[in-house]
C-alpha cells in the first residue's frame, strides 16, 4: 500500500510538472498576451480588408512602426513605473522640455566645433533630471505620484515655454553641425528607420531589464508588495527614484526622435503622451496597481493603437466616428484579452 501511494504521489508530481510546463508556456509573454496578439491580428485583418494592399504594403508597416516608435519608447518606461506601483503624468511635458532644451543648445549656444552628441547628452540629462526630481518628491517627500508628476507636468511645460519663448525652435535654421544629428536619427539600416530600430532596442532592453535582471525583479517586488520588498532588504525609496529616472531617460530618447523627425523643438511636443502611454501599458495587461506587467503586452498595446490610427486615415473616416469606434474597440480588446487569459490560467 505504501508503495502504491508512493507511485501515486510520483504520478501526481509528474502531472504537476507537466502542468507547470504548460503553465510556463501560458505564462510566457506570448501566452499571457494571446488575447492581445489576436486583437492586433483582427485589427490588421480589418485593415487589409478595408484598405487592401494600401494597408499590407511594407511602406505602410513602416509608417505604423514610425508612428509607434516615439510613444512606444515612452510606454516602455511607463511600464516600469506602473509595475513599480507608480504613475507618471509628466512624460509629455518632459519630452517637450527635453526637445526645447536640446534644440536651444543646438541653435543658440553651441560653438561651431561642438559635436551633436552634446544635444543627445542634453536631452537625456534633462529627461533624467526631471525624473530625478519626480522620484525624489515621490520616494523621499512622500508626495503621491499622481500629484508629483502632475506638478511636474505643469512646471516642465511652463519652463519649456519660457525657454523657447513659445516659439518653435528650428534645427539648422542658424544652428551648427546638426546635420550629423539628423543624419543619424533619420537614417535607415537594412531598409528600416533608425527610429524603429531605437524603439526595438529600447523594447528589447526593457524586456531583458524586467525579466532577466535583479533590477526588474525588484521592480515587481516594489510594486507588488512594498512592505515585503523593504523587509527583504531592498531600498524601496532608492529603487523608486531609479524608476522615475529611467522613464525620464526614455522621455529624453523620445524627445531626440521627435526633434530629428520634425527638425524642431517645441513646448507643444508630446502633448497627450501621458494618456497614450498609460493606455498602451494598461491595455497591455499591466496592473495599474503595480506588481505585474509585461513589456510584450505594452508593445502590442502601442501597435494596436497606432495601427488603428492608420487604418482610420486610410479609410477616410470622420474623426467623430473614429472616437466612437475607438472606445468600442478598446473595450472589445480588453474583454477578449480577459477571456483568453482566464482560459489559459485554468
Amino acid at each position, binding site marked *: 500500500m505504501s508503495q502504491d501511494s508512493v507511485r501515486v504521489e510520483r504520478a*501526481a508530481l509528474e502531472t504537476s510538472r507537466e502542468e*507547470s510546463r504548460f503553465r*510556463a508556456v501560458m505564462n510566457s509573454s506570448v501566452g499571457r498576451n494571446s488575447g492581445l496578439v489576436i486583437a492586433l491580428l483582427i485589427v490588421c485583418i480589418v485593415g487589409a480588408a478595408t484598405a487592401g494592399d494600401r494597408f499590407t504594403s511594407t511602406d505602410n508597416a513602416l509608417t505604423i512602426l514610425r508612428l509607434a516608435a516615439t510613444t512606444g519608447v515612452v510606454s516602455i518606461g511607463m511600464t516600469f513605473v506602473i509595475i513599480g506601483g507608480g504613475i507618471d503624468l509628466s512624460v509629455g511635458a518632459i519630452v517637450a522640455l527635453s526637445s526645447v532644451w536640446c534644440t536651444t543648445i543646438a541653435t543658440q549656444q553651441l560653438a561651431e566645433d561642438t559635436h551633436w552628441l552634446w544635444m543627445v547628452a542634453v536631452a537625456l540629462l534633462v529627461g533624467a533630471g526631471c525624473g530625478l526630481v519626480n522620484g525624489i518628491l515621490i520616494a523621499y517627500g512622500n508626495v503621491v505620484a499622481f500629484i508629483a508628476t502632475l506638478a511636474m507636468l505643469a512646471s516642465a511645460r511652463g519652463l519649456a515655454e519660457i525657454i523657447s519663448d513659445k516659439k518653435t525652435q528650428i534645427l539648422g535654421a542658424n544652428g551648427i553641425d546638426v546635420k550629423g544629428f539628423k543624419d543619424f536619427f533619420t537614417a535607415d539600416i537594412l531598409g528600416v528607420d533608425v527610429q524603429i530600430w531605437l524603439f526595438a532596442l529600447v523594447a528589447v532592453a526593457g524586456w531583458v531589464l524586467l525579466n532577466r535582471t*535583479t533590477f526588474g*525583479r525588484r521592480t515587481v517586488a516594489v510594486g507588488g*508588495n512594498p512592505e*515585503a*520588498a*523593504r523587509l527583504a532588504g531592498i*531600498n524601496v525609496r532608492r529603487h523608486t527614484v531609479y524608476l522615475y529616472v529611467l522613464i525620464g531617460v526614455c522621455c529624453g530618447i523620445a524627445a531626440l526622435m521627435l526633434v530629428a523627425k520634425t527638425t524642431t523643438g517645441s513646448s507643444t511636443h508630446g502633448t497627450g503622451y501621458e494618456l497614450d502611454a498609460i493606455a498602451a501599458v494598461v491595455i497591455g495587461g499591466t496592473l495599474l496597481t503595480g506588481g505585474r506587467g509585461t513589456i510584450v503586452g505594452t508593445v502590442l498595446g502601442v501597435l494596436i493603437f497606432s495601427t488603428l490610427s492608420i487604418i482610420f486615415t486610410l479609410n477616410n473616416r470622420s474623426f467623430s466616428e473614429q472616437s466612437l469606434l475607438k472606445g468600442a474597440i478598446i473595450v472589445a480588446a480588453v474583454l477578449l484579452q480577459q477571456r483568453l487569459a482566464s482560459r489559459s490560467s485554468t
Partner: protein
Amino acid sequence: MSVLLQMTGIVKEFPGVRALDGVDLDVRAGEVHCLLGQNGAGKSTLIKVLSGFHQPDAGTITWEGEPAPLSTPAKAIERGVGTIYQELDLVPHLDVAENIFLGHEVSVGGFTQRGRAHQQARELLDRLGHPEISPTRVVGDLSPAKQQIVSMARALSRDTRLLILDEPSAVLDQGEVENLFRVIHDLTRDGVAVIYISHRLEEIRQIGDRITVLKDGRTVATGLAVQETPTAELIRLMTGRSIEYVFPPRPDTALDRGAAVLEVRDLALAGVFTGVDLTVHAGEIVGFAGLVGAGRSEIIETVYGARRATGGTVTVDGKRLRRGSVAAAVRAGVGLAPEERKSQGLLLDQAVYANITVSSMSRFARLGFLDRGEERRQSQELTSSLDVRPDGVTRAVRTLSGGNQQKVVLARWLMRDCRVLLLDEPTRGVDVGARSEIYQLIRSLADRGVAVVVVSSEIEEVLGLADRVLVVREGVVVHESAATAIDEAEVLDLVMEGKVPA
C-alpha cells in the same frame, strides 16, 4: 552557549499606544527561545524592532557583545537575522524562487541566473520537506500554508544566525508542524538561534529551551527553562490570572436537538471538492477536520456563496440560496469569519465599530442614515465583552494586534443575529485566555439556537468543541460521526491515510 543577542529596556510607542515598555531579552546561539504573551502583548512589535522594521524609541541592542543598531531591514539581514512574519510577506506575482532570493538574487553583474536560482530553491524546499512546491509557481497561487513554507525557505536562503518565527504554526497542520520542528532541530544543531512565537503551549513544550513572557509590552519573566515551568504558571504570567484551559461542556442533548437549519446537498466545486452533504441543526456545532489544502475552506466559502458552486444546493431554513451570492446568504442569516482576516475579513483603515457593523448596517439605519452613536455603543458592548485590547471602538483596526483583529471579525457576526455561523480557523493567532472565551462564546451561540460550522487545523479543537465531526481529505468527506465517537489518533489516521510514512 554564548549570548548572541541581548535587548535591554526596549521601548516602542505608536500614536496613542505604548506597544513596548521596557523589554529585556537575551538569546543564546543554538537555543530555541520562546516568546509568550497575550494578544497585543507586543511580541510582533518586538521582532519587528529586531528585524530593523521599527526603530525603538529607547533601549539598547547588542549583538555578540557589541552595540548593534538595526536601523534598516537590510542591516538586520546583514547581521544574520532571518524573519518569518506573522502576516505573509511575499510578492504575489513573483514565482517561488524569485521570492526566496528577493533582495539577494542569484545574479552575475545584475543579470539573474534563473537556472541556479531554481536549483538552489529546489534544494531549500527539499530540505524543508516540500519537494512538491515548484520553484516556478507564482506565489499568489499557493495556499497560505505553502506560502508560509516559501517564507521559511527565504529565511534559510540567507546565512542566518538568528531565525525568528512569528506564529508559524498558525497556518500549518500537525504533520507540517512536526516537519517544521525537524527543520528547527537541524538548525539549532548548527548553532543557529531561534526565537519562536506561538499561542500553542504544547508546541512550546515540544520545541522550546527557554521562555520569555511579555505582558502589556513589558518583560514579566525571562530565561525560564521550559522543563521546569508548569503550564499553569505560564498562563498566570501571561494573563495575570489562572485560566481553566478547557472546552465548554456539551449539553446532553447536543445531537439532533433542533430543527435542521443549514442543509447542503451534493455540493461541488469543480476541481476542488465533490458530493458534500451536510446538515446542521439549530444549536449544533459541526467541526471540519482535515489537512491544510484538503479543501475545507473552499467548502464553507462555497456554502456561503463566496465561490460559485458547480453543483448541488444549499438551503437555510428550507429556503434555497442563490448560487454564488454572498448577499443572499447574508440575508438568509449566514455569516462567515474567513480564514485570512487581513485580506478577506477586515477594512484595515476603518474604525473598529465600522468593521463590526458593516454586515448589519440596516439595523442602525433609518432611510439610509446611520445612527453612529448607537453603532458605537453596541459595538463597545461587544468589544468589552470580548475583551478586545486596546479598548475603544474608534481606533483603526490596522493598529490592533493579530488576535484582537480576529475578535473584531467575530464581533461582526455576533452583532448580526445569525442563523448559521461559518468559522474558518476561529482561534488562529488567538491567545490562551481569549481562546477559551471564544470557545465559550461559540457554545453560548449554539445554545441560543445558532447552527455553527467550525473549520480548524487543530484536531484537538475540533474534537473538543464540536458536537459532530466531519473529516475531509482531498475534497471528499471521508468520515462523519459524533465528536465523542472518535479520538485524535483515529482522526489523524483518517486525515493522513494515503500519506507515505516518514
